[in-house]
Every structure is written in C-alpha cells, then in structure tokens.
C-alpha cells in the first residue's frame, strides 16, 4: 500500500501533484484545495468520477483537462453509480485476468458538490453505499448551487440568503435547517464517515488516507468556503474555514462503522457564531434587530449539536 507521508508539511510537500493549475475555479476557491489534498494524500493510481458542479465544469473546459488521472464526468446525480460501475468492472477484470497491469494499486474516488450529494444524487449515493462498493465519496459542501448562481440546496443552513431564498422585508433567507448528511450516511452502516475541513490540513489528509485505505464505501463531507456565494474576500478562505470550525458551525468528526464517533478537532476557545456569520455577506441581514432571533436559534442549535456529539463520543454507540 502506497501512502504519502503526512508527518509534517515539509515532507508532505515532496509529492508530485496530479491536479494541474489553470482550471477555471474562482480565485480562492476551497474546492481545489480539497481535491489537491486528496490526490496528494496517496500515490496509488486514482480513478475519479465527478458529478456536475463547479468542480466539473471548471476542470474540464474543452479542450483542457486538469486531471492527470483517469477521470470521468457524467450526469448531475450519478458520480456514485459511475464509480461503483468502474469498481465492479475493475474487480471482474482482475478476476478474469484481463487487466493490463493487475498489480498496480487503484483507488476509486467520487467528487460531488452539496447540490448533487444532498439533493440530486442522494438516491444514487445511497444505493452505491448500500451495495458496498469499495470507493470514497467526497462531498465538497459549499452550501448552495454555486455553479448555477447560488440557489438554495438542502445543505444551505438556516438564515442564509440565496438567490432562491432571498432575505428581505418578509423573509430572513432560508427558513429550513441543514440536512444532517453525515448522520444519514452513518446510518447506512458505512465503514468510514467523516466531516473534515481544509484549514486542518493534517486531520483532513489523515481522514482521506483512512477513507482510501478502508475497504468499502466511505463518505466524507468537506467544508468548502465559496467566495462568490458566501460573499467574502477570496484571500480569507482559510480564515473563514478557521471560523467555521472554531465556532463549531462545522464540527470536525468521524463515525466508524456507523457507531464509533470520534471528535477530531476540539477548538481551544469556542467562538460565538456571530463571528462566523459577520464575516460573510450572505448573513448580513441577520444583524438587523428584527432578525436577531435567528442568530440565537443558530447558536442554540450549534450548542445542542456539540453536546450531542460529545455524548455520543463518550457513549460509543
């Protein structure tokens, strides 16, 4: 098994990149940080499928491709089905002995945005995980359909302004809660499910390596700050992700075999959620006096969730 050393950043930086520059993602987009880190975390051959979304449309603009590996783009919903098909074929051909290079280690990875994971590809992903193919599904969660102009998705948190859940005189933005995809995937009994953040590079790389090593379907939700739709300065991507993990808006944790929950990052000083909200344009309206109750609600939910995670970690069930 070939895995890159991630003991420290200096050693990690000696890998040979397989995700090329001059893709057309926005400056400061966290998608490519996450994709680069996954591809750098291993030196096995990779077979990658990508759902339609920002990542797909920007990395394969004809006549260019940014992928130095086997890569396929198909419909909005079926990266999970495509990768399970590829994996099944690989296993069958290995059994029949028709592979060109049967000893080369291969890993199967699928990327999807939150739109294609939480909404459109949900059924396909659920099916692929239930069938138990050996692949890793990574959701690049930027909490809206950023590729088509920032519509709401079921990953958009309560109170956020999106182009189809607008904030104004009668509404404070999206009124529904964010779907808890990690719990849903853990309930499938997947061997490894995690929520990771790119600002904690080592935790993220370790999580990726664990998922790639684990046999069976793994699901990872990664926080991907979207400069365009969250409305912040591109240079602050990492700072904003820091705020996201330190306010516990995005707790970093893993669930093994659907039961064993481990919290991977505990902030030393938990910040109030206002700091995270105030850093983004999409929550600007929440600071008006009539919308203060929404912030209180968000804070209450975060506290309850953190309490729940800690109790589950302790109880090991």
């Amino acid at each position: 098994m070939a895995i890159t050393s991630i003991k420290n950043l200096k050693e990690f930086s000696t890998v040979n990149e397989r995700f090329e520059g001059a893709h057309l993602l926005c400056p400061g987009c966290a998608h490519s940080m996450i994709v680069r880190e996954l591809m750098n975390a291993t030196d096995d051959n990779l077979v990658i499928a990508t759902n339609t979304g920002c990542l797909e449309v920007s990395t394969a603009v004809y006549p260019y491709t940014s992928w130095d590996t086997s890569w396929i783009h198909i419909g909005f919903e079926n990266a999970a089905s495509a990768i399970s098909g590829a994996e099944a074929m690989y296993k069958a051909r290995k059994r029949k002995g028709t592979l060109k290079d049967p000893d080369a280690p291969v890993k199967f990875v699928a990327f999807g945005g939150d739109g294609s994971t939480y909404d459109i590809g949900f059924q396909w992903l659920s099916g692929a995980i239930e069938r138990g193919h050996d692949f890793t599904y990574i959701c690049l969660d930027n909490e809206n359909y950023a590729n088509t102009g920032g519509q709401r998705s079921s990953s958009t948190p309560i109170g956020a302004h999106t182009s189809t859940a607008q904030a104004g005189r009668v509404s404070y933005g999206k009124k529904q809660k964010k779907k808890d995809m990690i719990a849903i995937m853990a309930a499938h009994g997947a061997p490894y499910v995690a929520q990771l953040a790119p600002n904690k590079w080592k935790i993220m790389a370790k999580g990726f390596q664990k998922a790639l090593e684990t046999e069976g379907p793994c699901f990872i939700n990664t926080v991907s700050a979207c400069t365009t739709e969250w409305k912040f300065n591109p240079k602050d991507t990492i700072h904003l992700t820091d705020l996201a993990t330190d306010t516990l808006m995005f707790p970093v944790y893993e669930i093994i075999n659907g039961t064993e929950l481990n919290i991977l990052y505990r902030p030393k000083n938990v910040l109030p959620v206002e700091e995270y909200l105030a850093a983004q344009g999409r929550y600007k309206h929440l600071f008006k006096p009539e919308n203060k109750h929404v912030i209180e609600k968000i804070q209450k939910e975060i506290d309850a969730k953190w309490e729940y995670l800690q109790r589950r970690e302790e109880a090991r069930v």
Partner: protein
Amino acid sequence: MSKGVLATEKRGMRELGAEKAVGWDVVTQGTLLYPFESELKDVAHIRPEERPYSDFNSYTATVASWRVVKPVYNRDVCIDCQNCWVWCPDTSIISRDKQMLGIDYDHCKGCGVCAEVCPTNPKSLIMFAEAEEIEDALAKWPEKKKKAK
C-alpha cells in the same frame, strides 16, 4: 392533414436538409482528452517537469490574465513551512525537496490565500499590483514588526 406536418414524417429534417448531414444520428461517446502525449504509468512518481504534457492538459494553458494583484516571494524571510503550498488552490506554489522555489505565474490567479497564511514576520509573500516589477516590490519589503505589548 397535409403531408409533412407530423414530426414523424421528418418534416423538420427535410426542411433543413438534415437528411444529407453525415453522422447526425450517430451516438457520440463523449469526448476523450488525454493529459499526456504518451501512455504514462505511475504519474505520482514522475515530477511535473519530466512529464510529457499534451496540449489538452491545462498545465499548458494560462490564467495569468485573471490577476489584478500578484504575490511576490521573498526568499530571505522564508522558513519553508509550506503553508502556502498546502493551501494554494491553483497548484501555483513550486516546492521541490522540501524547499519553496517560487510562484508559477502562469497558473496563479492572485487570490491572496498564500500571503494570508504566511506565518513569518515580515511576511515572505506579499500581494503587489500586477504591474509592479518584482525587483521594485522586493526593494519595498516591510521591516520586521515589533510585538505589541
């Protein structure tokens, strides 16, 4: 009903003369783009400068025109921590053998993440206007800031 009204009679086809068009009914199998000139095994163990990139690889393209500001790198202050390397979204920080060598200005979009995550004092990566010459920028480098007490 007069002849040629129903779609099943290929009315539209005849009008456009599409029946003469070659290959309109052939299912295309998508587009294949080969990132390398030749078949390459074990890409993860070949350095980028030794790879036979094809014209389809975005490595051969440039997004330099996107930039308004550019990062300038000062080797004298750098501690090779590689923070900029791990968080660069555009694979534009060139690091070899645990050393930071410089910036790939063909692929850098000038987002400024590298300058933001640089931990040295003064920073070894600072954003300057795109038109600024690198020598002029290096001459203007700020002094070490004293810790506020």
